[in-house]
């Protein structure tokens, strides 16, 4: 019900004490409210005049206001804490995204992390609010009231004490029954509830198959099935609320009878009987409040756990082992016996015993079938993933991994589908170098062959792109990335991960000319399955199943009529 890690949050203990104090005070307000109301009602019953009720009614009203005023204060206090703690968590989460980046995102799914950082944080906030206030109410208020009831009337006290565990027991049993029923139907349920969206998304296909009109009937039928299933699940799911209500109201009814009989026998005066009757619903109220929000807290609890799980992923350390330097013609990176796997609980090794040397302004092609490990190799070289073992030497410095701040500022990375930030085109271009002037950006735009396109936009370089902006074709997006690379002249390494895979042949043809300009004075690492790029490369690595199957100068490998390179390239051209 409560995650123990909750108690380890900073500042929670003083808050707890404060809340507990306020809740005790509130319990007394509830008590006073009942006492004064009962006294007023007894006087009225005794047919005393309005003047005699005066101050008691006033006291009742004040206790009533005090009780609700305390709720207000508690909410304010809790919310301040919850908001602050949630924001701290969100900041830590983002810091974690920055430091452990790609590998963590790949593991958890980017959509997941966005949801966690946005809606998840709202749920966590809600969870803190509910769990701390409602749980605290349940742990304090009923028991203070109970002490008073016992003092007034022993039998009523016993009845109320006995009912409490029975209610909890029934709720647990019914809760399990509902859970069983729900989980046995869950898979079918999900299919039914997603069916509508599924059908809407597949509408074009249905239309092409001439089935879209007939399918209308199907929509109605499935929706009706969904209704029937929902109702049959609901029938059991809300049984626990029913049980809770049933026991509370029934125990009030029983109490009324008990008290009535005791009054008739003359063993009890009116006041204790009335005050017990008034307090009985208050005794159950915290439990009912807690139960009604229970499901809301479950979501929050899950989100809280997910966040903590992400935060406990070990961060990459030793990021600053490399002194400041600039890659040049004499630079050299040697990698020996490098091994990497994404998931170390399986046998699947993603990179196996890689040995390679990169030096100066070489142009290196990385080719292989899909799934051979091209992208993983580039990620390891960029320091986005951390190899388990391997000997890495950069200009004579021995390094545990390449997630080095100084190394990562040496290169530009062009992925298959470039990510455009929702900002202006200019700011996307100067992303690595925010201080670049407009003239420099303009120049990079021209070098990247983007100027003609920019000229057609009414707002030119200030046009907003990305999520909330203008849609842009794949070719233009790649050109924006190239402009970014042209702009940062001090970065002498280019890492390309199949940048032209999604482009049509003529766009690629036009883009190639621009890219070749960029290759000058750069170390180029180029993963591709478009073989024509080999012409611009000096060296080639052939990957197969995580291993380097063959490597060597392009010219040399092109001469061979056998071996992994020969086989792969023939297969790709469709020559059998």
């Amino acid at each position, binding site marked *: 019900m409560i995650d123990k890690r909750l108690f380890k949050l900073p500042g929670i203990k003083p808050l707890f004490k404060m809340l507990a104090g306020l809740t005790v005070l509130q319990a007394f307000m509830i008590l006073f409210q009942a006492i004064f109301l009962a006294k007023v009602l007894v006087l009225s019953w005794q047919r005393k005049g309005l003047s005699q009720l005066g101050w008691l009614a006033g006291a009742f009203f004040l206790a009533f206001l005090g009780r609700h005023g305390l709720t207000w204060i508690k909410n304010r206090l809790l919310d301040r804490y919850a908001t602050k703690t949630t924001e701290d968590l969100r900041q830590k989460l983002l810091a974690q995204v920055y430091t452990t980046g790609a590998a963590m995102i790949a593991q958890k799914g980017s959509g997941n992390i966005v949801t966690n950082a946005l809606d998840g944080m709202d749920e966590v906030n809600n969870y803190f609010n509910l769990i701390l206030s409602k749980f605290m109410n349940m742990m304090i208020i009923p028991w203070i009231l109970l002490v008073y009831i016992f003092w007034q009337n022993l039998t009523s006290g016993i009845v109320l004490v006995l009912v409490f565990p029975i209610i909890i027991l029934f709720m647990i049993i019914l809760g399990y029954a509902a859970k069983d029923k729900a989980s046995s139907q869950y898979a079918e349920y999900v299919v039914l509830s997603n069916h509508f969206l599924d059908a809407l998304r597949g509408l074009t296909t249905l239309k092409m*198959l001439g089935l879209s009109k007939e399918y209308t009937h199907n929509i109605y039928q499935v929706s009706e099935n969904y209704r029937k299933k929902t109702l049959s699940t609901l029938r059991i799911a809300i049984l626990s609320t029913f049980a809770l209500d049933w026991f509370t109201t029934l125990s009030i009814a029983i109490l009324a009878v008990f008290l009535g009989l005791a009054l008739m026998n003359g063993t009890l005066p009116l006041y204790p009987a009335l005050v017990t009757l008034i307090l009985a619903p208050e005794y159950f109220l915290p439990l009912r409040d807690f139960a009604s929000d229970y499901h809301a807290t479950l979501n929050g609890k899950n989100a809280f756990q997910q966040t903590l799980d992400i935060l406990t992923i070990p961060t990459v350390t030793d990021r600053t082992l490399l002194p400041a330097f600039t890659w040049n013609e004499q630079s050299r990176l040697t990698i020996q016996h490098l091994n990497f796997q994404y998931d170390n609980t399986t046998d699947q090794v993603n990179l196996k015993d890689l040995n390679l040397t990169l030096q100066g302004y070489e142009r290196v092609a990385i080719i292989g079938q899909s799934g051979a490990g091209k992208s993983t190799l580039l990620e390891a070289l960029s320091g986005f993933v951390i190899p388990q073992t391997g000997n890495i030497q950069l200009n004579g410095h021995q390094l545990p991994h390449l997630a080095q701040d100084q190394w990562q500022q040496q290169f530009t990375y062009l992925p298959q589908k470039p990510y455009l930030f929702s900002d202006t085109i200019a700011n996307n271009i100067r992303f690595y170098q925010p201080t670049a002037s407009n003239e420099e950006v303009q120049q990079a735009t021209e070098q990247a062959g983007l100027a003609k396109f920019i000229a057609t936009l009414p707002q030119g370089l200030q046009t907003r792109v990305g999520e909330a902006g203008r849609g842009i074709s794949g070719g233009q997006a790649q050109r924006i990335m190239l402009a970014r690379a042209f702009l940062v002249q001090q970065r002498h390494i280019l890492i390309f991960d199949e940048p032209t895979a999604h482009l049509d042949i003529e766009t690629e043809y036009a883009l190639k000319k621009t890219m070749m300009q960029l290759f000058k004075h750069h170390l180029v690492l180029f993963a591709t399955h478009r073989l024509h790029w080999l012409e611009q490369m000096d060296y080639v690595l052939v990957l197969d199943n995580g291993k380097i199957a063959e490597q060597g100068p392009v010219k040399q490998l092109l001469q061979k009529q056998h071996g992994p390179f020969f086989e792969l390239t023939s297969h790709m051209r469709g020559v059998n």
Partner: protein
Amino acid sequence: MWKHDTWVKPYLKQYKFLLATVLFLGVLTTFCGGALMFTSGYTIDKSATRPYNILMIYPAILLTRAFGIGRPTFKYIERLRSHNWVLRVTSNLRTRLYQTVEQDAAFFSEKYQSGNILGLLSEDIDHLQNLYLRTVFPTVVGILLVVIITIGIGYFDWWFGLFILLLLLIEVLWAPLLSTSIEAARRERQKTLKDQLYTELTDNILGANDWVLSGRKADFQKTTQTTINQLNASKLISKKFGWQRDFYLQLVLGVIFLVLIVFTNLHFTSTQAQANYVAAFVLAIAPVDETIIPISQGFEEYPMYRDSVKRLNQLHPTPQKLPPQQQLAPADFQTLTIQNLQFEYDATTPVLVRNFNQTIQRGEKLALIGPSGSGKTTLLQLINGDLAPQKGAVLVNQINVRALQNNRQQLFAFLNQQPFLFNTSILNNVRLGNENKSDQQVRDAIAAVKMQDLVESLPQGYDTSVQEAGARFSGGEQQRLSLARILLQDAPIVLLDEPTVGLDPITEHDLLQTIFTVLQDKTIIWVTHHLQGINHVDQVIFWNQGQIEMAGNPQHLYQTNAHFQELYRMDQGIIH
């Protein structure tokens, strides 16, 4: 907005009896809660007069039990009934939304595929469910209760009745309406800020690698901070408003208590028999707060519901004007003629097809190559008659294709970039091609597209679910299953819209091989973005800005056209 609404109001008239039951049960639930306290109070007061016979309080005891059982029971039934009503309406709404979108299927990609409009529309229907459950029902029930209470008290004293009515109307009408009017703008702003935060977080997370490479850690954390602060500040004002409002609502309730105390003291103290009703009247009001306080909270969601209702009411399918329909047997198809075709979506968008002429004989295969966004898909939609051209016509034999829409699926089959697989079994998905085919024929089609071995190796074989959007299978496999569907459909003309985009060259090559083998005797129009597999077609058209750039037989072009030769070499990776 509500005046011309067709998505909420008409449905209130449906299932009138069920709706009345729901509202009646809602009133009854709270009524029983009040009555339980009423009879309990009466039992105790009456007993305190020490009647000599238990029979004197027996009816009250019986009623107490009845109301004690009645309250939870009615609540339980009410919850089931209200969900039943809402889900029934949902079935109708979904059917209607589907029909509306279906009429628009030709403009599907134009109107619905950008962003997540389908997801939004489907969520809107879920919002309508909550509009009923959280706002409409509680408000109506609240108002009915106010009427009952007012009549109950007005029966004894007209003035007190009026006074209580005013106080209760504050609770069920004035406060909710005030909440909406004060909160609406703020909620709107919070929604905007939340969308903005979503964009920023997406930028942070999907662009994480770029942030790391840029080395701008401080900027990374700063991007979201402003929005988060603004959002939290605005939310805090909303919360403060809510706490304050809830406190004042309780204050009004406290005043109601006082009024009842005065009322009972003035009216029920002339005889002891009357005085026995004092506690009854005062205590009966307590359960009412559970019903009326949440009404204001329900109203806070109103702006969201309003947006949903607005969006649904704004759906207007573009009417299709089709000429009188004719019949053409698939076996009789001979030529497809495209005459002076011209098309633009509307005056503000570029002309996508400009004076295009082409004749295709039965069995001929044509490839169409061009950059993305150049209207290739639109051309396919013009050919199969989904869209009507502004000028010119597409003729099948001598009949305009727009006159052949009734049985179009017998003439045209369509394989698009991302064919849609429905979340059902493999067998059912493929059979959508032609629902009259036997299981064996479906299996033969799956064998023809070389999926037999894979499907039969799955534990559930042909009955395996393809999962949501075909997620169980890779892109190439999904295309193969869709191709099997087309084989069953057996139409003489097949339109292929970039079926291999995003696949690696080896998968692409194999898939194209299969496509052109199984569709050997069909007429094919194939939109593609590069030259892989171009040897399968009789004619290739390079398409740009709505016009033909270069056209001819690929073998012939290779021999005579230098540009084509260069593109072909590049695509094949042939190195000089």
